């Protein structure tokens, strides 16, 4: 009877501690981001997703690997926000609960939190169809998911091994280095580990063993700080005698106050001011991770300039990350707000580092193309199809895709790409060929693409269906992938102009969007302003989610939508008739203008402290 009576309060207490756990508090964010991420990856993979269960991940193509690393970074972040270095909250520390009862609950929360994003993304990526209302899952991808979670769980538990007497492991440089080494090791292990059941069993065994080791090492009670070395009982009297006789006297007796102070360094004040501002705004784990990801995105975005790949999703993600960095910065500005530091300086400190990271990544990517032994081309032949930058796609006039006919009469009608399944604007890829097309037709399409993209003249012989094609060339076509030599080293005026104008528009648009978004922190004296802010920020987000879900369910064609945007920018660039160099020179001007617009709004925002958030974080 008594035991049953005691169970209910303990269960209630457990529930209370669970609800206050940082892992639990971040649940909805993790679910939302993981679901969107999973859908995006699945939508991006298209009809033929890669086989992830065939071998270690390092054997996958570079793009898949890059995508996996980005996804892993999110998993790692979801693990970090559980504050795994804190074994117990201060609240639980003050309660009559033994560490052996508190820690398992907290550890379970943390492990569940690292499992949740992995499970959601795995479910989305592994889905291969439906049967009886249930998703059909790819076994290899599911096994990879289990492997990833196993490694993350091992990381989380191994990260809790040091400073076992304290309720929170102090973030000393040695511990940070330990975590960094563990994280790098975890990623490496995930990439190289074989999809073998034996390895999986070993991994789960290691997780259990580390967890047991943690549990076994728990003290009878935690302390808030690292305690002094324990003194043997017999020495206590001697110790007290030492205190009386040998300890250094109190400061006031031994050292005059003036000895304690030293003249404050006078030089470097300006640098110190910037260091302080930048430190407050960007020297925290989330900002550092976001900045690193932005650098990586900048590195990837270069591909958009030099290859036919469409990097629009990365551009959108980079924009979202820029928003994230700015939001983080604004949330931290309350520390500096009482000081006479101009808002323009604060704005520069908030906005310029992420832009600099993006530019740094972009520069590194550009350098890679100049130094690397391979040469990128704007026209390629991959996946048994001619690849061109998307601005060279066409809008079907009156919704009818025209027939593409070679001089010798062979013809092919490219597949119609309506923007939505319900109809609307129709796009097509004018250099497409059919499965039954002859090698001569494919060669003709490749040459047509090269001529249009690079503005060069195709050889007259391509009009002859009986022209000789080398056996190597025919083999490459049959293989379904090669880089046309004629495209190597050639630029494209149209492509350059399109991207230069795109950069100008993006810079201006970013400024406008930033200004509208900053309205969230504006004085609360206008209902209309609030409404417009909600609409301006909510509608694009809703649109993005609708696109992602629509893309995954094939209701909308995201590729065609991206192409339509690029076609419109290309038409604008052609209407302006300005050289690419001039447009590229205008891009920084547009950026400054866009930032000026945003800065005007930033100068008037309110920066209240986030009291509730800080209280919560102080507890854990």
């Amino acid at each position, binding site marked *: 009877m008594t035991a049953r009576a005691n169970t209910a309060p303990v269960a209630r207490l457990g529930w209370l501690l669970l609800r206050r756990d940082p892992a639990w508090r971040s649940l909805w964010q993790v679910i939302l981001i993981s679901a969107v991420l999973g859908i995006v990856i699945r939508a991006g993979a298209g009809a033929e997703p890669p086989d992830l269960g065939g071998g270690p991940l390092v054997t996958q193509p570079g793009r898949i690997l890059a995508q996996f690393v980005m996804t892993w970074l999110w998993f790692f972040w979801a693990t970090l926000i559980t504050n795994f270095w804190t074994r117990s909250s201060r609240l639980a520390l003050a309660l009559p609960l033994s560490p052996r009862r508190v820690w398992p609950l907290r550890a379970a929360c943390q492990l569940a939190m690292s499992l949740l994003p992995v499970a959601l993304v795995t479910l989305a990526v592994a889905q291969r169809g439906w049967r009886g209302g249930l998703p059909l899952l790819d076994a290899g991808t599911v096994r990879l998911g289990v492997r990833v979670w196993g490694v993350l769980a091992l990381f989380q538990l191994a990260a809790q091994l040091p400073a076992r007497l304290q309720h929170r492991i102090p973030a000393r440089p040695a511990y940070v280095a330990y975590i960094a080494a563990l994280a790098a090791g975890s990623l490496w292990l995930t990439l190289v580990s074989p999809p073998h059941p034996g390895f999986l069993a070993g991994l789960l065994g290691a997780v259990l063993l580390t967890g047991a080791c943690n549990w076994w090492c728990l003290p009878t009670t935690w302390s808030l700080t690292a305690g002094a070395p324990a003194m043997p009982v017999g020495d206590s009297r001697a110790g007290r005698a030492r205190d009386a006789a040998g300890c250094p006297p109190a400061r006031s007796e031994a050292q005059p106050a003036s000895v304690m102070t*030293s003249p*404050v*360094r006078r030089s470097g004040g300006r640098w*110190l001011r910037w260091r302080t501002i930048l430190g407050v705004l960007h020297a925290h784990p989330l900002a550092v991770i976001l900045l690193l990801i932005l650098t990586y995105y900048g590195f990837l975005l270069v591909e958009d300039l030099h290859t036919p790949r469409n990097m629009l999703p990365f551009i959108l993600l980079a924009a979202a990350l820029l928003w994230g960095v700015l939001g983080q910065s604004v949330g931290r500005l309350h520390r500096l707000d009482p000081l*006479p*530091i101009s808002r323009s300086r604060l704005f520069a400190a908030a906005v310029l580092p992420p832009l600099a990271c993006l530019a740094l990544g972009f520069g590194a990517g550009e350098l890679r193309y100049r130094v690397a032994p391979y040469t990128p081309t704007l026209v390629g032949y991959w996946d048994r199809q001619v690849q061109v930058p998307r601005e060279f796609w066409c809008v079907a006039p009156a919704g009818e895709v025209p027939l593409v006919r070679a001089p010798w009469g062979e013809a092919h009608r490219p597949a119609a790409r309506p923007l939505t399944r319900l109809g609307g604007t129709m796009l097509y890829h004018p250099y497409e060929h059919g499965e039954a097309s002859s090698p001569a037709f494919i060669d003709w399409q490749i040459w047509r693409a090269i001529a249009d993209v690079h503005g060069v003249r195709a050889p007259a012989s391509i009009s002859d269906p009986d022209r000789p094609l080398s056996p190597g060339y025919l083999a490459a076509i049959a293989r379904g992938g090669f880089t046309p030599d004629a495209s190597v080293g050639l630029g494209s005026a149209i492509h350059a102009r399109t991207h230069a104008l795109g950069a100008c528009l993006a810079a201006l648009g970013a400024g406008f969007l930033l200004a509208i978004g900053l309205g969230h922190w504006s*004085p609360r004296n206008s209902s209309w302003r609030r409404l417009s802010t909600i609409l301006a920020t909510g509608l694009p987000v809703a649109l993005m989610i609708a696109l992602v879900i629509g893309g995954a369910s094939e209701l909308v064609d995201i590729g065609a939508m991206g192409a339509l945007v690029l076609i419109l920018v290309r038409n604008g660039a052609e209407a302006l008739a300005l050289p690419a160099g001039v447009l590229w020179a205008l891009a920084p001007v547009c950026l400054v203008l866009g930032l000026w617009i945003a800065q005007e709004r930033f100068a008037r925002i*309110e920066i209240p402290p986030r009291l509730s958030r800080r209280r919560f974080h102080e507890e854990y």
Partner: protein
Amino acid sequence: MRTVEFHEITMAYRKGEPVLDGVGFAADGGDVIGLLGRNGAGKTTLLRIAMGMLAPQAGAVRLFGLDPREHPLAVKQRVGYVSEDQILPEFLKVAEVIAMHRQLFPSWDETLERRLCERFAVPPGARIRTLSKGQARQVALLCAVAHRPELLVLDEPAGGLDPAVRREFLETAIQLLNEEGTTILFSSHHMTDVERMAGRVVLLHDAAVLLDNPLDELREGFSLALVPVAAVDGERLRAMPGCLGLREQGGAWRAIVREGPAACRERLAAELGVAEARCQSLPLEEMFIELVGGRS
């Protein structure tokens, strides 16, 4: 030109629930104003409005004749600010924090800085995160006063400090600045601090200014009337001119009246016919409890 002016300040974080509703008062050079009120009365909000960190939904605030949101730099360079939740950059050393503030304030007084460094004896090489709460607050005060501000805004500056550090902190602020004519606007829950520091008290309650009087006037011009419940109807007593607050305790009405004890006794007898009332002067803390307790 007055140092601080609040005109009909209105501010609500939620629609229909104003934190401040038409709050207005002003301060001149040398005034030391203690801002009182219960938790959530709007003290911090008002001080943040003064600093230009929040914009009021209606009304205006002027510091040295300037709008702090229109001229933030010009205003902040003449103001010192310390608040309970203010966090100095924890990754900096004490000396670096001071050096940064020296950069930011053109009127920085290095002699005063040295004097305060010696007085507080905070190790300059220590990082902010390693300091105790009292030491960190002392560094914040040093940074707030070493540029000899014309206005010092203290938002619960001594919250969480032990009595010795609190007294040291407040005495430093008063000694250094008030004798030079610096206006001090501070909020506190420690009535003893208010009584020791303030020349004037502004009490915020129900989103409005309930009291705005010099401290001496509060001591002499207000009294607590204890009237048996059976002797008078509570509503009549509440409606009596000068009655600021009323509550019942132990079979007696406890009324705060804006008159000295003798005058209060006479008014009760004359207007309500109560002869058995006991009127007495009361300390600030009692007055605060009676006023805000009787009106909530």
